[in-house]
């Protein structure tokens, strides 16, 4: 995708997020999004999700890149996991599902269980156990699907999870970067304008340094997203998502601090980004837990993974 095409797409997507009240996926479809993804999936994912992050809005766009295709060629949405890579556990012959859908259920959905298998759950069952999420981020549009099921009542499908999970993590990492940079812009604007003690808050060293540190971390995260796109490796996608989660965590804390009390209210847009960021971090495993997992793997292998060639 050349730079002009990217600019064009970016402004269309931005416009869509700014004007559309509902889920933007329909708008994306009419924009020919599926063709864009087919042509250059890495660039498409980075562009769309960075913009979604910047807009601070939820959509089911993740389903357009992270989905499951069964042997018959039919595609199914994924029941996305929070706090882990699996949305279900198999315990004592029972499939315990606790995962989210990005939109109101309207089809059968696939969940990855901790046994690594993919279970296709019937639409009626999913619908019966789905409830709209309020929680920490009522604007998340998520539907939580929580149910216990006999695995025999599902169809086990053959899925290359590593691909699905890697794409999802790259998309989420890009969205985190967009989200973090948006928070940073908000905070930068506010402390540039607001005066205390006869000078702008942003003329003081401490808030300046905190925001500069956030900027540096987000810069590192953006490069990791790009590198993960190039390599396509699972570890790189996991690393990008974890680092982006860490970067946005730091950014969120700094921005909330420098924006002061108003930044903690419904009168300020910052909390919307903060809420969204926590959901994004939790999807497919939070950064802190992921870092620990990666560390344990390195210790077990007694080696640092070899970096990809430039």
């Amino acid at each position, binding site marked *: 995708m050349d730079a002009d095409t990217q600019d064009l797409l970016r402004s269309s997507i931005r416009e869509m997020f700014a004007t559309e009240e509902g889920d933007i996926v329909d708008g994306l479809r009419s924009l020919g999004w599926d063709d864009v993804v087919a042509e250059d999936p890495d660039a498409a994912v980075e562009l769309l999700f960075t913009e979604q992050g910047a807009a601070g809005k939820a959509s089911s766009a993740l389903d357009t890149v992270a989905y499951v295709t069964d042997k018959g060629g039919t595609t199914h949405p994924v029941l996305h996991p929070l706090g882990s890579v699996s949305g279900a556990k198999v315990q004592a012959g029972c499939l315990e599902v606790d995962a989210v859908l990005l939109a109101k259920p309207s089809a059968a959905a696939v969940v990855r269980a901790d046994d690594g298998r993919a279970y296709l759950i019937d639409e009626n069952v999913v619908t019966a156990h789905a409830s709209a999420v309020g929680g920490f981020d009522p604007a998340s549009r998520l539907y939580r699907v929580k149910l216990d099921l006999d695995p025999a009542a599902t169809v086990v499908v053959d899925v290359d999870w590593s691909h699905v999970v890697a794409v999802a993590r790259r998309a989420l990492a890009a969205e985190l970067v967009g989200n973090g940079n948006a928070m940073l812009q908000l905070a930068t604007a506010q402390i540039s304008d607001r005066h205390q003690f006869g000078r702008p808050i942003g003329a003081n060293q401490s808030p300046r340094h905190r925001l500069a540190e956030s900027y*540096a971390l987000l810069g590192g995260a953006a490069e990791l997203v790009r*590198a993960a796109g190039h390599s396509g490796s699972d570890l790189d996608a996991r690393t990008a998502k974890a680092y982006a989660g860490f970067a946005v965590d730091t950014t969120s804390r700094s921005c909330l601090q420098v924006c002061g009390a108003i930044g903690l209210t419904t009168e300020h847009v910052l909390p919307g980004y903060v809420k969204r960021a926590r959901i994004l971090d939790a999807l497919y495993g939070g950064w802190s837990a992921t870092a620990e997992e990666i560390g344990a793997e390195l210790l077990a292998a007694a080696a640092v993974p070899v970096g990809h060639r*430039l």
Partner: protein
Amino acid sequence: MTAAVDTGEILDQFAAALSAATEELAPLRTPAPDAATELAHSQALMNWLYDGGWTRWGWPEEVGGVGGSPLIRCQILEHLALAGYHIPDHLLVLEVVGPAVVQHAPVLAAEYLPAALRGDELWSQGFSEPEAGSDLAALRTKAVDRGDGTYLVNGQKIWTSYGACADRIVLLARSGALADRHRGLVMLLVDLNAPGVERRPIALASGREELAEVFFADVVVGADRLIGVDGGGWAVAMDLLQYERGTYAWMRMATATAYLQQLLRILAEGPRETTPRSAAAIGRTYLNLAALRARTASTLRQLADHKTVGPETSVDKLLLSTAEQDVLDTAMVQLDAEALLSDSVTAASWRDRWWYSRAASIYGGAREVQYSIVADRILKLPRENTHGR
């Protein structure tokens, strides 16, 4: 060099050559007990790398290189570090000053760089002074144009890496008035065996004598040793600092990654079980290294494409000091009593590395200076003033 070269193929060839030389180079993989031994190791490895053609990639033929992209050389050095070798000390300065000499003084570069690239000469970089650290433009060392084709240099440099034993120094001095700040500066290549040069090694807290003070008293330097134009020293210095954020940062990243690798091996040989605490520390360290590698790779690509990288490289510098300090902090905690109490060469070298990593957020513009650059020039926050706290 003509036509396209296959980087992958070269890197494979290098890996094979290095592995074939495992026995020959074995002494160079052992930690050096002191700075002198380390420099001797460094020179031996420089010679081997140059004679094999490996470190000649990315340098123009006129200065002893074989052309091609500097990215090839960078990846060769990364492989070298991960194979258990100390990236030659000679390169730490050379990779920073070399490209600027090539660009701003091609004739000088052709005459003097080849010996430095082969490791037959050790170069140093004379920027910092007692009264000019992060505030480099306050430097006072004077270089007076005597009008007879020579400069007379007087003053003092400090924190000069390898200053006590280097053969030459890339010196930033003032040819104009102090009030001119960064406008009245000149960059010169000065021989450190010239009459009037005195040096005093400075021992780091670990005891390692790697840094030095260098004193200049009526040192005569030919005008043919100018790097760039008189009055343009600041521009050369800024150009040079880009490489400190590019190739130098890449080498430090490779070295820090090699340290993590060594730590993992040591832990694997030990009796301890993996605890969640050690896993968390190792995992975070890896994340910081990965971010640094991705970021630095992107900067290297821009430099290779002759793009000016500008204030954005402050990000690289910030990520570098975080990653480097993280690796060594993790190592010190994990190695525990052994690192604190043992007088073995290995334990001492971990302590050296730990102290050295503290410098990562001080040299080349302290962490706080990098924050200010990002805040001023990228985020465009209101400037800090004298009332700023």
